[in-house]
C-alpha cells in the first residue's frame, strides 16, 4: 500500500478550479520533487493534503496508508504523521516557541496514545534537534517565528519536522530565502530524516536544492496537473529548457 496516494484530485478555491484532476503516488522511503511555474497549484496541493480550510474538494481522493485523509481534521492528520513545512510560516506573537513545540508534540503523542513528555524530557530532545540545525537557544525563547528572518523561519520548520518525526514530509519551497550555508544545513537536516519508513515531497523551483536532497522522482506541475514525471534528470532538463514545453501539454 502506498504511503500517500492522491487520486484525480479536483480542488476549487472561491468558485475557481485550481487543481484539475491531479494524481501522485508516494511510497515509503521515496523522495519526490515537485517543480512547476508560479501559480501552478503546488502550495494548493500541499494545503489540501494538510487540511487547510477554505478549499473545496470537488473530486478525487487523498489516501494516507489507505485511509481517507479528507475526512480527518488537520490535527488528526498531523498525529498520524502528515507534516507540511510551510512556504510562508506564520508569526504567532505571545506564544513562546518552546512552549508551542512542547504542546504540539504532546498533543500528537496523546492522539497516538503515547506518553506525555515531561519538560526535562522535552527540552533535551528539542535542544538536541536545535543544535543539529544550528538554531540558537535564544531563538526558541521568542514567540513562534516572531522577528525570525526568512531563513530562520524555514529552519524552524525543519526543526519541527525533526521533533515530530512524521511519516510523510511535504516541504513547500524550503529553499526560498535560505543562503547557501543555511540551505546546506537545512538539507542535511532533511537528509538525516530520510529513512526507509518515511517519504518526502519536496516542492521547489530550483534544481540546486535537489543537488542536496536527491530525489527518486521528479514531477512537473502545470496549471493544476502533473504533466510529466521522471527521474532526477528531469530536474536538470527543466533547468536547461524551462517550463514552456509543458505549458501546452497542460
Amino acid at each position, binding site marked *: 500500500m502506498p504511503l500517500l496516494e492522491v487520486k484525480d484530485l479536483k480542488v476549487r478555491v472561491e468558485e475557481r478550479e485550481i487543481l484539475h484532476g491531479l494524481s501522485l503516488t508516494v511510497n515509503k522511503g521515496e523522495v519526490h520533487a515537485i517543480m512547476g511555474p508560479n501559480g501552478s497549484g503546488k502550495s494548493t496541493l500541499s494545503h489540501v493534503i494538510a487540511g487547510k480550510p477554505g478549499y473545496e474538494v470537488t473530486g478525487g481522493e487523498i489516501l494516507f496508508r489507505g485511509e481517507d485523509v479528507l475526512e480527518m481534521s488537520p*490535527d488528526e492528520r498531523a498525529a498520524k504523521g502528515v507534516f507540511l513545512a510551510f512556504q510562508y510560516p*506564520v508569526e504567532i506573537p505571545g506564544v513562546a516557541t518552546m512552549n508551542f513545540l512542547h504542546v504540539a508534540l504532546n498533543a*500528537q503523542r496523546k492522539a497516538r496514545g503515547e506518553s506525555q513528555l515531561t519538560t526535562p524530557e522535552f527540552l533535551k530532545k528539542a535542544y538536541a534537534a536545535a543544535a543539529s540545525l544550528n538554531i540558537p537557544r535564544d531563538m526558541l525563547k521568542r514567540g513562534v517565528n516572531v522577528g525570525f528572518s526568512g531563513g530562520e523561519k524555514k529552519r524552524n520548520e525543519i526543526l519541527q519536522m525533526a521533533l515530530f518525526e512524521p511519516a510523510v514530509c511535504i516541504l513547500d519551497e524550503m529553499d526560498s530565502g535560505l543562503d547557501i550555508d543555511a540551505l546546506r544545513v537545512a538539507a542535511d537536516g532533511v537528509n538525516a530524516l530520510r529513512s526507509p519508513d518515511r517519504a518526502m515531497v519536496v516542492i521547489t523551483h530550483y534544481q540546486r536544492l535537489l543537488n542536496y536532497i536527491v530525489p527518486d522522482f521528479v514531477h512537473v506541475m502545470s496549471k493544476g496537473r502533473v504533466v510529466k514525471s521522471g527521474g532526477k534528470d528531469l530536474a536538470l532538463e527543466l533547468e536547461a529548457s524551462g517550463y514552456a514545453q509543458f505549458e501546452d501539454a497542460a
Partner: protein
Amino acid sequence: MNLALAKNETGRALSDSFAIARDRLPGTGRVAEARSAAFEAYDRAGLPHRRIEDWKYTDLRALMREVLPLAPTPDAAALKRAATAVKLQAIKGVRRLVLVDGVFAPKLSELDGLEKGVAVGTLRGVLESGEAALQAQLFSLDSANPMVALNSAMMTDGVVIQIANGIVLTQPLQIIHVATGTTPTAMFTRSLLRLGKDAGVTLVESYIAADGAKTYQAHDSLVVAIGDNSRLDHVRLVEDGREAFNISSAVITLGAHAHFNTFGMTSGAAVSRYQATIAFAGEGSRVETNGVNLLNGRQHADTTLFMDHAVPHCASREVFRAVADDRAHSVFQGRIIVRPQAQKTDAKMMTRALLLSDEAEADNKPELEIFADDVTCGHGATTGALDESLLFYLRARGLSEKEAQALLIQAFVGEAIESIVNDDLRELAIAAAQRWLEARG
C-alpha cells in the same frame, strides 16, 4: 425609613429588607443617618436600567431583577467551606484578609505580625467606633450612582487598611471575598485603603465561591487614597460562581507624583459590573490600567472606567481586552475627562475584543471630554475573531481546535498579564485564566 417610597414589588421587598437588616448594619447616629440618606437615594432610582445612559449595556432590572436579602452571618459550617475554597487558591507570600458572605473572618485571615506603620481593621469596627474622619471617608462615594448608594446603605463589613508615610510593604495584601450561600442572598462590603506619602503596597482583591454556593449577589466597593510619591499595585480577579452577580465600585484618588498600576480580570460570575473612578488630585502622577474579560456561555461582564484628569501633568493608559465566546456579552465603557486646568495631560485608551462565536458580543464605548488645549489624548479599538491562518498552523502541528484557540487566547490575555509586576501575582492571574480555559473544555 419611609416604606411608602417603594415603587414596585421588588422595591418594596428591598425597603422591607433594609428595615429588617438595620439591626445588623453597624453604626449609629451620623452613620445611620448617612445610610438612610443613601438608601433613599437608591430607592428613588431603583435598579438601573438601559434607559440610563451609563447602564445602557448592563440593564440590571433585566439581568438582576431584584436585590436579594442580606446574607446571614456565616456559621461554623460556612466558615469551614470558605476555608477550603481559600486554600485551593492560596499563593505564597501574601497576607490574606478574608470576608465570608460579606463578614470579616479573623480566623481565616492573617493579622499577626503586622509591619510597623500598617493598621488593618474592619469596616464594622470603624463604623461602630472609628474616628469620624474615617467614617466620613467611607461615606464619600457619590450616591448619584444607585448601586453605590445601595452599597452605602447596606455595607456590613470590609477591610480598612491604613499605611503610614514612608512605609513600603513588600508583602502583598489580598482581600478574598468568599461566598458560601446555598440559598439566594446578597452581601454588601466596602473596603478602604489609605496609603500615606512615600509609601507603597500591592493590593489583591479576589472574588470566589465555595463549593456548592448557588445564586448570590456580591455588592462591593473600594475607597482608595494614594498619597504623594506613593505607589499602589492592584490586582483584581473576579472568579465568582457562574450563577453569581458581582456589582463593584471603586474610587481611587491619587496625590502628586503617585503611581497606580492596576490589573483586573473577570472570568467568573453570571453578571458583573466593575465601575471605577480614578481621580488625579496631584500633579505628575501616572496610572496604568489593564483589564481582561474572559467570558463564555451567557456571561455578561461590564467594566466602566472614569479617568478624571483634574490637574496638569498626569498620564493615564487604559488597555482593555475582551474574549467572548458562545452568547457572552462583554462591555467596556471608558470615559476620560480632561478638565480645563489639566494641561499636559497624556491619556490613552485602547480596547481589543476577540469574539469566538457569531453570537458573542463586545460593546465598547469610549468617551473623551477634553477641555484643555495642550494635551495628548487618544483611543483606539479593534474587534475580530482568532486569526484563521494562525489556527491552521497550530492545528497542522497537532493541536485540536480548542487547544489551538486556548494557546492564542493565552497569548492575547498574556500581554495584559505581563503588566503585573509581582511574579507570584502574575502566576495567580495566569492560573485564573487557565481555570477559565480548562472549564471551557
